[in-house]
């Protein structure tokens, strides 16, 4: 398929259809609304079902029903709306149901504002709802990745029978770039035996409920499931990490600025590198093995509290200084990042 110019949100929506998604229900909220608007007409074109739900609560619970019935089901939101979906995500996890939920992150707590942000990291990676769970989280850094990650997200969701989150942001969602939409694939709603379809006489009834009630070895099953995800699904991109004295750690829109920072710093002799987590959970601990020359790590995130710092400290076993370069009102500038890196190296912090 040839490249086309699309907004990140639209590319994500079209790629969901390409991945065989035929059910969407969501609620408008900036900056993800283009996904809903695009699918409001495009879903019909491909013979799928689109519902503008009365709330995020209804939206996520419609997705739960569609997933239980065998569809590749999607819902999308941002910040406040994503919070409302957390109960439903917890129920999806509890019942071993695959689905894809996108958070096009916006800035701030409470209502916040509609511009880009990366303040939902904790909510995305710690299990934002009640209970004892985590979900796989993919973090695209471009319109192309918005498109490429949809099929991967649905595949992973089905592989583990577990919801998969996509951590996009307002910048990635709103920017227009050239993108190649992946080939369309067919999804068969009868692909799995466990989906509800009607119980024939003499056959076993299908029950979609918290597997806590029914699984004969619940604790081991869950421990193994999460361990396998942590071992098998770490994804990352390392950029000039091997000889870097200071390694930046950033995902999504911030990682794009960090690429520039690495290049500019190296032009003036400062050895910066970049670890870009592509999965936020599992956190790509393996990426840090390559950082053999590192003296310190600096996360670059669009939040105030440095939400990823703890994960970097854990990944490096607390052996190195880890600091945070935060910017919430604007996307961080690369020269500010370089300055902060120089300060860290000069201070003798390292």
């Amino acid at each position, binding site marked *: 398929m040839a490249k086309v110019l699309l907004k990140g949100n639209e590319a994500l929506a079209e790629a969901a259809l390409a991945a065989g998604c*035929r*059910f969407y*229900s969501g609620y408008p909220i900036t900056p993800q609304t283009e996904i809903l608007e695009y699918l409001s007409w495009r879903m019909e074109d491909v013979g799928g*079902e689109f*519902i503008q*739900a*009365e*709330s995020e*609560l*209804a*939206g996520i*619970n*419609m*997705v*739960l*029903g*569609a*997933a*239980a*019935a*065998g*569809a590749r*089901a999607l819902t999308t939101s941002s910040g406040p709306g994503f919070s409302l979906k957390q*109960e*439903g995500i917890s*129920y999806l996890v509890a*019942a071993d149901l695959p689905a894809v939920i996108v958070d096009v992150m916006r800035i701030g707590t409470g209502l916040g504002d509609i511009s880009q942000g990366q303040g939902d990291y904790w909510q995305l990676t710690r299990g934002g709802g009640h209970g004892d769970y985590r979900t796989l989280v993919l973090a695209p850094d471009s319109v192309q990745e918005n498109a490429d990650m949809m099929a991967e997200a649905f595949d992973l969701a089905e592989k583990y029978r577990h919801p998969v989150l996509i951590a996009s942001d307002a910048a990635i969602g709103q920017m227009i770039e050239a993108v190649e939409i992946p080939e369309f694939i067919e999804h068969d*709603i009868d692909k799995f035996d466990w989906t*509800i*379809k*009607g*119980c*024939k*006489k003499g056959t076993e*009834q*299908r*029950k*979609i*409920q*918290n597997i806590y009630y029914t699984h004969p070895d619940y604790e081991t099953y869950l421990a193994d499931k999460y361990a396998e995800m942590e071992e098998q699904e770490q994804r990352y991109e390392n950029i000039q990490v091997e000889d870097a004295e200071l390694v930046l750690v950033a995902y999504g829109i911030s990682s794009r600025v960090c690429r520039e920072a690495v290049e500019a710093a190296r032009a003036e002799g400062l050895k910066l590198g970049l670890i870009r987590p592509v999965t936020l959970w599992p956190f790509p601990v393996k990426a840090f093995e390559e950082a053999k020359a590192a003296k310190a790590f600096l996360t670059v995130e669009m939040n105030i509290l440095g939400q990823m710092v703890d994960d970097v400290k854990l990944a490096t076993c607390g052996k190195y200084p880890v600091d945070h370069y935060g910017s919430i009102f604007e996307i961080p500038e690369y020269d500010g990042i370089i300055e902060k890196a120089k300060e860290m190296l000069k201070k003798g912090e390292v």
Partner: protein
Amino acid sequence: MRLVAPETVTFTESGFCPGCGHGLAVRLIAEVMEEMGLSEKLLTIVDVACGSLNIDSWRFDTIMAAHGRPIATAVGVKKVRPENPVMAYIGDGAAYSIGLAETMHTALRNDNVVTVVINNSLYGMTGGQCAPTSLPGQITTSTPRGKDTKKAGMPFRVEEAFTGFDIAYLARGSMADARGMIQSKKYLQKAFEKHMNGEGFCLVELLSACPTNLNITPVKSVERIKNDMIPYFPLGEFKDKKEEE
């Protein structure tokens, strides 16, 4: 009335209290499904409250959905499997309190799902708190001095709220005696017929006994339906789209 329950009624692990109405509703639904030849096709969505026990009471493919959300979940199921009959089975708390928005917007869209609401005038699973359907003066664990309608309002009457919507069917039956059961079964049958014809949203409310939480005997509990509940919750069909047309 039949003496032998349909084979889809399993009650393998039913935890219903003696005198509870849920078992009667299970049986009515199972009979209607068998008689309509839909037993192998029905997909059900139950709420997390007492009705959730039905996942082990009947042999239909079933989802146990979040509290108040079974109708939304049912809509998702029906869109994916339009050939199957799809039923949400919920209590009055789910339908008229926490899930009222879902009930109302499913009615507004006239989505083609059947909703069975078991109205026992209280929250059963959590131990008998005040519900939107609790009667004036009703003693509950959250209205120990009696429900004060000045604070909590009058009992929620689904027919007053929903007949203005362009829905396929709305009826209320009683499970207090044989006559009520026969009538209720007819309502359920009609709802499923309309559902299979693709006519849209069908809601059947069934007045049900809850002796445990009312702290009265099963016999008194069904008498209460007739003497105290029906005056507030009249029986009958309130919306029947095809007949109206």
